[in-house]
């Protein structure tokens, strides 16, 4: 079966693994607690729109993204909403 390409906004990846690798690099270039840069936020905005529970994740609207810890010593992206609440999301669920 040919690999399924992934498109996130203007970014194009030949296969899922490439997208996962790109996003993982992005995740780990930050320190825990950091807010994500403007450029990366644009990509994450496009990405979260592809999340099956997009509406629940974005809630009142997206203010910014952060890198924070997740369960068992791992880390993930969090969406910071305009109402001050915050929610983690899995990039893998988006494509």
């Amino acid at each position: 079966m040919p690999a399924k390409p992934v498109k996130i906004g203007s970014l194009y990846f030949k296969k899922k693994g490439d997208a996962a690798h790109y996003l993982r690099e992005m995740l780990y270039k930050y320190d825990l607690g950091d807010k994500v840069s403007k450029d990366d936020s644009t990509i994450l905005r496009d990405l979260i729109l592809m999340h099956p529970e997009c509406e629940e994740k974005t809630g009142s609207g997206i203010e910014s993204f952060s890198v924070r810890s997740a369960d068992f010593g791992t880390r993930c992206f969090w969406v910071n909403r305009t109402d001050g609440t915050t929610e983690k999301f899995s990039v893998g669920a988006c494509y």
Partner: protein
Amino acid sequence: MRIEAYKRKFDDSVLVEATGKWLGVNEFQKEFWTGASSENSWLSASAPTASGKTFLVLQWLLDRLITTDTSVVVYLAPTRALVTEIEASLNDLLADDKTINVTSLPLAEKYLSAAAGVTKTIFVFTQERLHLLANILSDELSVDLLIVDEAHKIGDNQRGVILQDAIERISRSNHKMKAVFVSPSTQNPDELLQDAPIGTDRVSVDSDIPTVLQNVILAQQVPRKPKEWALGLVSGDSSIPIGVLQLANKPAGLRKRLAFIAAAAGARGGTLIYCNGAAEAEEIALLISQLDIREKTDDKELLDLADLARKGVHRSYQLAPLVERGVAFHYGNMPALIRVEIERLFRIGKIRFLACTSTLIEGVNLSCRTIVVRGPRKGRGNPMEPHDFWNLAGRAGRWGNEFQGNIICIDPNDESAWPIGVPKRSRYPIQRETDAVMTSKDGLVEYLDGRDIESLSDLEGAEHYEQVGAYLLDTYLRLGSLANAGLAKRHDSKLLEKLDACLERMARKIDIPAELSIRHPGVSAIGLQRLLDLFKNYEGDVENLLPAPSESVDAYDRYVTVMRRINSSIFPVFLPDGLVPLHALIVVEWLKGLSLAVIIRKRIEYHQRNNKTFKLAVLIRDTMDIVEQTARFKAPKYISAYMDILHMHLLEIKRDDLIDEDFDIGVALEFGVSSTTLLSLMELGLSRMTAVALYEKISKDDLSRDGCVRWITDHAPNFEGMDLPNIIVREVLERVRPPRSLQEQFTD
């Protein structure tokens, strides 16, 4: 005859000018009083433990404050436990005297009021808190009188350097400051006077006469009879047999041996058992509690303490059931309110056996009738030095009206327990840690040369050299050469030249001003410089460098990162790396103002949620340890340095809009407070445990001190219905003193 009697009375008394009354004193006390009262002098006094030094110093201090224009006094005590004790003693002595303020909080406003002559104030501080106050006031701090209690601790390997630095720092800002040093049985009290400003009189007062009789008793098992222990009273180089102690059970194992002998020999109460560490103290107290056939107590004060232990720590905290049987343990990381109440109930005989640790020789004034000890260690595993042993032994005696005490030493001929035998009476040699490291350690220059190593985790010898190295580098940055410093007179000029050359190489890499690095004693300027370089080279959003307020959702993650930056740039402090998240979590919870009980409960829930096994007693002790050692010691020391360097960077890049001037992370961490209300409650003199318990009942987070007093006055009638432990209610009523009718309602 009458004239002779009067003469003797005058010879043995000093005049307390404030009251016009004569105070009966012994020769040492008289010398101290006269010497300390002379103008323009620095005095160093040494006398055996439990000879009434502290009481005398406090009496003299108050007399001095009342009768002279002295208005800013700093009383330095080496531990928070002793700070609490001294603060309470001063408050008791002052009773309702409102002209003198006593505080243990480093608050600018209290200093400014004292400096302006409005109220006289005694600041009772640890050395770290004195630095905090000097930082808050940007070194615009002029102290009239400095008293340093347990001054021999200037030789401690970590905090001794911070103490020396604190003394020098405030003596620089007022050359006319009077200083009084007090230490237990030291060989050379005059050592502390060496750095007195030129033109100051130096008075050394020394006494070696114990005011109570201490009997050293050796306990050895009778051959073939493990339940029989022969006791011998040490007299000169031999011992006189005084009888055989009969144990009720076979003492299998060393802990049982200690516990059973203590229970058999100390049944009259007033018995201290010296244990090597908190875990051992808990175990030995548990063993002793089973040997006494008495029923559970119905004494209200003991029951109140048990209640506080259950509510303030955990419902299964081992202390509670023990206290109900008149037995307790005592260690440094315990919450102050509980520890102080244990000491009080031991003093009045309600707690009969107390298993304690080296916290007691680190400066808690607690006398007893009998001390039972086997193979004492100080800290982690180091055999106790003779002077420390005698500092401990000196606590035996002065129990109630008694003037003699017993020190029972078990297995005196066992070399693993007593490597040098039971130590002979001995006095402390005072030596500053800085001098000790400079004279005896060869690796200092090498360490400093390699201090800027790429990976700080590879740094070797840090435990010996880091503190002293940081002190010397600050001194060099301030003066341009060690030859200009007070220490120069104590060291060989060749060594100084060698160190100067090495420090010069380091200083070339540093553009942090000396005024900034001296704000952080013990934190190396070269480490601070590396952090500044990290900030300068940071390519991300500068806001990412700031920690978040503790209430913020990203606070925990940001503290994890801040701690890791500190580890890699300043010094590897929060170790091992895998535990950084746990330390960050507890720091954030502490800053949020959570109670110890809640912090413990959350850790237990975390373990249960993740199916992790744990031992409750270990988890409780471990949490207390992280609170005391990380949240209240390492984190304020290093995170406040991080913030200072960050502020410097933000100013340089014109982003000072990000600086929150009103929030001092050092103060917030030292006291574990996040809101104005909590800090106000602590300013009223309440312990953190009490302040947090009350704050849980108070809705407003911005109450001033007056606002808190009003809240307490309004709500005191309902305290009973709030399920607050009685000891907490009592502390509130003692410190805040609402109208008398309310107090009576609770004390009846």
